[in-house]
């Protein structure tokens, strides 16, 4: 079964290298294992994540693209739609009917015609516009709603950390 998944992953890799979406790099960690990818996502401009470069891992199931992959940030990002351990919780990573938070919109679900690029673009939108209706990280959602300044401060310190800059003096 993995043969089909491998063929598809190789095609997607080729697509992503020849036509890379802006601000995103994604590739298999090891050429011998196409089922584990690493990616770098640039924080969207004019948001508190701007300029940050956030590393994440994508793990593909053996029956990809029939089933969706899983994605996990490895940089300790504090965000309403990302679990404390880094797992990304957005609708495109879930098949219809599988809705861990119970609030996801019915659009943008995983289906085999979706792609890694679509996922990554959705993740960028998620960074720009958190969905606090379906929080994976409740305290992040609460802070995003009630204390935006503090939320932005935390985001800023992470942005600096990802760029290896000293912490802000503010």
């Amino acid at each position, binding site marked *: *079964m993995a043969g*089909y998944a491998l063929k598809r992953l190789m095609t997607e890799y080729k697509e992503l290298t020849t036509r890379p979406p802006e601000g995103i790099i994604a590739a298999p960690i090891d050429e011998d294992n196409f089922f584990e990818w690493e990616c770098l996502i640039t924080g969207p401009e004019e948001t508190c994540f701007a300029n940050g470069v956030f590393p994440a891992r994508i793990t593909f199931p053996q029956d990809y693209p029939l089933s969706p992959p899983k994605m996990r940030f490895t940089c300790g990002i504090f965000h309403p739609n990302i679990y404390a351990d880094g797992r990304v919780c957005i609708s495109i990573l879930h098949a219809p*009917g*599988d809705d861990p938070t119970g609030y996801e919109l019915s659009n943008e679900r995983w289906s085999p015609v979706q792609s890694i690029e679509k996922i990554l673009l959705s993740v960028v939108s998620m960074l720009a516009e958190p969905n606090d209706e379906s929080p994976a990280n409740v305290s992040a959602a609460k802070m995003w709603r009630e204390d935006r300044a503090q939320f932005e401060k935390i985001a800023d310190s992470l942005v600096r950390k990802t760029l290896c800059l000293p912490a802000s003096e503010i």
Partner: protein
Amino acid sequence: MANDSDENKPTSTAAMTEDDLLLQDQQLKQIEDEQKASPLVGDKLPFYALAGLYDPVSAITFFTKANELAAIYSDIRFIRGDGNCFYRAVLVGIVEILMKDRERLIKFIDTGREWMAKLVKLGFPDWTCSDFCEFFIEFLEKIRDGKYTEAEVFQNLNDDGTANYLLMYFRLITSGFLKDNCEEYAPFIAEGMTLQQYCETEIEAMWKEADHLSIMALVRATGIRLRIQYMDRSEAPNGGYQHDLPDEADNVTPDITLLYRPGHYDLIYRNLVAQ
């Protein structure tokens, strides 16, 4: 066997903790393992195998009906109940026809190419969508060129990866047919959902069961004549209730006949001697 997976999947209404998610994963895995105990597509069995599933005392209605149907139908192929059973039964039924009818096979390959172009025009993501169409067309071409024996064809239909890739073609043309005939079908979509959303979440995603609208769409997209023989609790005489698609036309022999039991479809074959 009579229940498809989606009915068993827990539907969450509130936010789940990580423990809940873990438990849900384990439960889904267990359901999946149970499903995988039966083949995707069973061998052709004598129709009496169906009656054998029911206890003559506690399930007398089903037992009687299965025996009544055995007068009309000679064989049955059980299809795995994984949410794909309708599409899979049609896939197998069509492939069986195409293996015996070269003219139709060649036409079906041409239609496959037309669909591939049409799907892209309808706004389906280009290369992910074409990937499934090309895979299906190549499979039919191998049959056309005599590269597969019948046994090898069925091996492919029972291999998870190959079979589900082939099946995706049917999901895509079902969805494509509805999108192409949006004005006609949009009124049948439940409120709060657009036809586009319905297609994406109910048809294009794997392991989602087909409902009446998707059944109609696939029948019309493939141009097959389909009979659905209902095996429910109604005590209709003479084998019970049946439904012909695309039109109720008397005396037209269907290409494919499916047996419907609540939540599930299997492929059945008419007794040619009795006709």
